[in-house]
């Protein structure tokens, strides 16, 4: 027997705040939850896509995040915004997926080189400021292209630090690695990103 759908006597959810909608959803109001999904779906999908770099996977993982957030609603106590809370759920789902994927593939030599560090110390310092040099749309496109060139560990640490503004400690906990590893990966990712945005060659000589 399917769960009973509760319809609020106020059909217009669009003016309600997230807090009000969460309150309604916690009481079983699917309409309220659907409004929350509608409001935040692009953001949650975008975060999944930034990590997975694949549309279908990002759609699936974002939907899984919404299902999980419905199941765990009682755990949400407003310690962060609702959108941030669901974002954390989708990030963890993406990381689980990436870990599962990693167990089944062999790392390339380049990725191992990145992991061991040292490459970034050889890169020349980039003195040009990309925001001064490039138009907004061009910069966005370049960033997207550069993100594709990073390994998923480096892309993840960059996403978590630069876009999700997590501290090192939280990133380490999320990625299940040490703070030192977070710092090295972030350093590498930033330096490689700087070089890519400046159109510098980043391949290492073997």
């Amino acid at each position, binding site marked *: 027997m399917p769960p009973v759908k509760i319809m609020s006597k106020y059909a217009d959810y669009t*003016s*309600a*705040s*997230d807090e009000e909608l969460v309150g309604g959803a916690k009481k079983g109001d699917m309409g309220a939850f659907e409004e929350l999904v509608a*409001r*935040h779906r*692009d*953001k949650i999908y975008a975060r999944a896509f930034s990590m997975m770099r694949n549309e279908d996977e990002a759609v699936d993982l974002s939907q899984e995040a919404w299902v999980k957030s419905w199941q765990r609603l009682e755990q949400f106590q407003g310690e962060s*915004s609702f*959108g*941030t809370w669901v974002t954390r759920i989708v990030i963890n789902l993406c990381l689980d997926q990436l870990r599962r994927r990693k167990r089944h593939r062999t790392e390339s030599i380049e990725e191992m080189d990145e992991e061991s560090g040292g490459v970034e110390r050889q890169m020349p310092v980039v003195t040009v*400021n990309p*925001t*001064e040099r490039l138009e*907004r749309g061009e910069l966005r496109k370049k960033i997207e292209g550069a993100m594709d060139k990073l390994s998923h560990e480096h892309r993840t640490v960059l996403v978590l630090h630069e876009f999700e*503004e997590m501290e090192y400690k939280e990133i380490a906990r999320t990625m299940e690695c040490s703070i030192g590893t977070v710092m090295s990966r972030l350093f590498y990712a930033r330096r490689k990103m700087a070089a890519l945005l400046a159109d510098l060659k980043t391949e290492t000589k073997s």
Partner: protein
Amino acid sequence: MKSFRFVAVLLWAAIGLMAATLLTGVAPAEEPIRIQVTLVWGTNDPKSPDPKHKAIGAALARKLSKSPFRWKNYFEVNRQMVVILPEKEKAGIKMSDNCALDIKNLGDSRIETKLYGKSKLLEIRKDPLPKDWPLILAGNAENDTAWLVVIENVDAAR
């Protein structure tokens, strides 16, 4: 003997005062400054039309709740961290398509700010920027909302 003792006390007091001055002092003038610049949108709407906008941090929310502004909600549009060397200027800090700043480190936690709106220079100002004392530049935006640029000295703020 009494006068000798008096002079000795004075001398020790002077030394003590000098030491206290040196110890309590002031950060050396020749230091870089780390500044966080946040573009905030103030509105009475419960949500922002742009899903990338986030709620502002608790500390800033508290300050704005005590400000003369009575917007109900504030959303963070953009946030950047810059490190500025003494006597150097960080130019072209772009907060949005319409808002940019140049910030110069004048030393002793003083900054010079040039605020640009739609590429036009609006104001040049010099302010002390002690930690935990943000400088907030603000104005009206469309549809009864407001823009705020929050400039904070974040060094030693944690």
